[in-house]
């Protein structure tokens, strides 16, 4: 594959570098901040068209431009950027997975998140406050020991801790033997934490735009034209684009976009609901997860408690909340933290999850030449955004998938080499 590579240093003129000094001078002069990304007319041809302006699509665009000098790239997004899963997840980042492939992959993502703010010159508010998965019975404790040992082999900070230690780290949890599901231990993962998901999307968009990528919002993909087994053109609501390379980064909608190219995926789309409370003074430091109670909770920098759950019991493209979710959630949270009984929920929402049969993502080429997928991210896509973007960009530039993503090819379903990543989902599905 041949791309026009832009030589020399990227032009730094247009972008304002954010810094404390800029904040002070702008504050005093009250001059308006410049736009962080530009609106462009749709060009008639691009080297690469990325479908989906979420964290995966924008990160891929950014790493294509930064690491490989491929800047003639369009990101087409049918709504506004970050309007799908990237703005609806619970913003948790961790790497304590069950398999070696999974642990390695997400560990790379954490490493990228750790330096993302300085890479992008955009504060993504990454807070590594620790990630605690509670065990309520012996069998979960056994799986956690297994996970901890796999993690340690990969050099990831992860350990099984006692209920006393749980109480010390999160005093508001009920660690007595009174609840129906008492806490018998936990998997403690200090590098895990939360990050502001909108900032990650905006940071990538700003940095990619600066390197020459065109971000087309409110531009819906309507078709993919395939000729002699390869991509030749895409059609959008704003006109056609000639291209030889299309990357599908559309998560919950990925089956529909792939069908345009005649590619079938082993994906079903399910909503996952989340909710947030009114803000209160900080009392909860780590991210708390309970698989048995199907819930996870963290406190944002603003003081709101953010709750997530498992996916809904049937497939759907509807992003509406349900009453069963809130009542079920309240019951489970009160088992864990009886003290929050008087807190009020501010809002609830749903995001669409592209579930695969083995809870592993699908990254790689398809039977249509030039049509690549970065999908199947289920309930764990946000935390993988940076590493997926980096790996997909390298795959496009080098023409073949790198080592980290080799286990996640689409052909594994026909070959029968599934990944068995049971640690992928924080809570059981």
């Amino acid at each position, binding site marked *: 594959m041949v791309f026009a590579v832009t030589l020399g240093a990227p032009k730094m003129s247009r972008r304002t570098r954010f810094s404390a000094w800029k904040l002070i001078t702008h504050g005093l002069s009250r001059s308006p901040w410049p736009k962080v990304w530009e609106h462009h007319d749709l060009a008639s041809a691009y080297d690469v068209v990325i479908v989906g302006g979420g964290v995966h699509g924008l990160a891929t665009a950014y790493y294509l431009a930064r690491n490989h000098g491929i800047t003639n790239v369009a990101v087409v997004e049918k709504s506004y950027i970050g309007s799908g899963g990237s703005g609806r997840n619970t913003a948790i980042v961790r790497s304590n997975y069950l398999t070696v492939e999974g642990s390695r992959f997400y560990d790379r993502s954490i490493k990228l998140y750790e330096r993302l703010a300085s890479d992008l010159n955009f504060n993504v508010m990454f807070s590594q406050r620790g990630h605690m998965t509670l065990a309520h019975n012996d069998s979960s404790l056994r799986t956690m020991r297994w996970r901890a040992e796999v993690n340690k082999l990969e050099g990831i900070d992860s350990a099984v801790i006692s209920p006393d230690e749980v109480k010390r780290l999160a005093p508001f949890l009920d660690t007595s033997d009174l609840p129906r599901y008492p806490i018998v231990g936990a998997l403690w993962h200090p590098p895990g934490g939360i990050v502001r998901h909108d900032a990650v999307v905006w940071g990538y968009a700003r940095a990619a735009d600066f390197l020459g990528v065109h971000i087309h919002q409110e531009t819906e993909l309507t078709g993919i034209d395939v000729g002699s087994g390869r991509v030749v053109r895409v059609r959008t609501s704003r006109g056609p684009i000639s291209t030889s390379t299309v990357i599908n980064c559309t998560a919950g*909608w990925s*089956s*529909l976009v792939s*069908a345009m190219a005649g590619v*079938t*995926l*082993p*994906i*079903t*789309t399910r909503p996952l609901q989340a909710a947030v409370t009114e803000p209160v003074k900080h009392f909860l430091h780590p991210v708390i997860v309970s698989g048995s109670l199907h819930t996870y909770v963290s406190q944002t920098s603003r003081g709101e408690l953010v709750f997530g759950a498992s996916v809904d*019991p*049937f*497939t*759907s*493209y*509807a992003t509406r909340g*349900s*009453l*069963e979710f809130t009542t079920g959630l309240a019951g489970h949270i009160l088992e864990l933290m009886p003290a929050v009984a008087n807190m009020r929920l501010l809002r609830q929402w749903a995001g669409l999850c592209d579930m695969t*049969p083995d809870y592993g993502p699908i990254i790689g080429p398809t039977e249509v030449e030039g049509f690549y997928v970065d999908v199947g991210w289920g309930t764990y896509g946000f935390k993988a955004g940076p590493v997926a973007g980096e790996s997909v960009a390298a795959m496009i530039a080098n023409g073949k998938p790198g080592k980290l993503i080799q286990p996640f090819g689409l052909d594994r*379903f*026909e070959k*029968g080499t599934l990944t068995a990543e049971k640690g992928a989902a924080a809570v059981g599905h």
Partner: protein
Amino acid sequence: MLVIVCPNCGPRNDNEFNFGGEVIPRPSVDTDPATWRRYLYMRTNTSGWQRERWFHVSGCRRFLNIERHNVTNEIRLVTKMGRDSG
């Protein structure tokens, strides 16, 4: 919450049922592994009207065929599963 009108039990809440996914024709058992795996894993995952299988686990314990719009969650047809209806 969906209300599913079970042909055997009448209107019931969806939490009495297990969702069985979209209805896909099953290949014959002596087919090649690649075809069998496609049947196991590949899904149309359409957005709109979908023919799907449900099991009334907390009721009559019978399998049902349901046509549901998976954006609006409207249900337009519930039939018993049998030899004729697939």
